[in-house]
C-alpha cells in the first residue's frame, strides 16, 4: 500500500516530464548521432529531472501519510501512528498531540531541507524560475 501510494505519483510525473521535453533536444541529439539508449539516459532523463523530483516529493508525502495510518489500523506495536492510538486508549491526550506535532515536524523538515533545496538547485542550473 505504501509502495503503491508512493510509486504512482513518481511514475506519472516522470512520464509527464519526459513527454513535455522539447522535441528539438531529441532532434539535435539524433543529428549528433546519438542512439536511442544515449538519448534516453543523456537527454531525456536529465531534461525530466525536475518532474522526477516533484514526483518523489508527492510520493514521499503520500507514503508518509499511509505509513502513519497503517500503524494506527494494523497496530504494529511501534511507530508514531501506533503511539497516537495508544495514548487515545490511555486518555493521554498530551502525548497524542505531541505525536501529531512530531509527525508534522518530520514532514516539514524533509520538505524544506530536502526537496526544496534540491528543486531550487535544479531550477537555478536550468535557468528556470528567475526573471
Amino acid at each position, binding site marked *: 500500500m505504501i509502495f503503491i501510494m508512493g510509486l504512482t505519483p513518481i511514475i506519472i510525473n516522470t512520464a509527464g516530464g519526459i513527454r513535455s521535453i522539447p522535441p528539438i533536444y531529441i532532434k539535435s541529439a539524433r*543529428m549528433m548521432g546519438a542512439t536511442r539508449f544515449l538519448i534516453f539516459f*543523456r537527454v531525456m532523463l536529465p531534461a525530466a*529531472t525536475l518532474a522526477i523530483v516533484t514526483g518523489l516529493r508527492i510520493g514521499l508525502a503520500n507514503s508518509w501519510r499511509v505509513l502513519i495510518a497503517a500503524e494506527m489500523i494494523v497496530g504494529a506495536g511501534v511507530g508514531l501512528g501506533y503511539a497516537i492510538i495508544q495514548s487515545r486508549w490511555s486518555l493521554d491526550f498530551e502525548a497524542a498531540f505531541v505525536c501529531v506535532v512530531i509527525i508534522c515536524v518530520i514532514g516539514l523538515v524533509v520538505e524544506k531541507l530536502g526537496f526544496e533545496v534540491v528543486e531550487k538547485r*535544479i531550477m537555478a542550473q*536550468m535557468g528556470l524560475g528567475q526573471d
Partner: protein
Amino acid sequence: MVLECRNVSKVYVNRKLGHGVVALNDINLTIAKNEFVCIIGPSGCGKSSLLHMIAGFERPTRGSIRLHNEEISGPSPERGVVFQESSLLPWKSVRENIEFGLAIQGCPRSERQDIAGRYLNIVGLQGFDHARPHELSGGMKQKVAIARTLALDPAILLMDEPFGALDEQTRKRLDFELLELWQQRQKTILFVTHSIEEAILLADRIILLTVRPGRIQLDLELSLPRPRNLFSKEVVEIRQQLLAELMLCCPPGQPV
C-alpha cells in the same frame, strides 16, 4: 558534388482533409563542394521540409537524396543542422554542450576539450566556457549552436533560419560572421531563410521555391564579390528581380 536531390517530392497526409497535401514536388538540386546555397520562399513552401529530409529526420515520399553518392537513411553528424530555436541543453554549460556531440561520437576527453576550445574561439565566445545557455543572449546561443555543429565536422552544414528569431542588428552581424567563417574554413552550406536580403548577402546561389506545391521557381547564381553592399546597383537589381519572382509565385487572393 556533395549533395544531390533527384525528383524529390513530399506529400503529407492530412486526415481531416482526407487527401494528401503536396509540400514539395519534383525537386532537382545539386550542391557542389564549398558552395553556399540559400533557399528562400514564402512560409509553407516546403523549404524546411526539404532541409529536414536532407538532415534525415523525414523521408521523401518520392525521389532520392544522396550525399557523396550515398542514399540518406537517417540523421547523421555528417549533415550538421543548426535549428531556428535554441536547441542547447539547458543543464549543460556552453563547453559541455559543444563537447556533447563529440562525446556521443566516442571522442576521447582530451581531444574533445581541444576541439571545443578551438570552436569557442572561432565563434568568438572564449571565456564563456562555463556559462549556461540561459545566461547568454539569443545571438550568443546561436553561435554556440553553430560551434557545436561545426565541431562535428559535417560534410554539409544545414541551417534552418538560424537567425530568424533574432533582432535585425544581431542578425546582420551574425550573417557577416558566418560569411567570414565560411570563407576561412571552406564549408558547404545550405541555408534556409525567408529574407531576400540575407540570401543576397550570403549566397553563391539562391534557390526560390514556390508555394504549395513547392517547386524550384528560380535557381540564381550570384557572382558578385563579397562583402556585398545591399544598395549597390547590381544588388538592387537582383533584389527587384527576386521580389518580382516572389510576387509571381504567390499571387494575391491565394490562401497562404
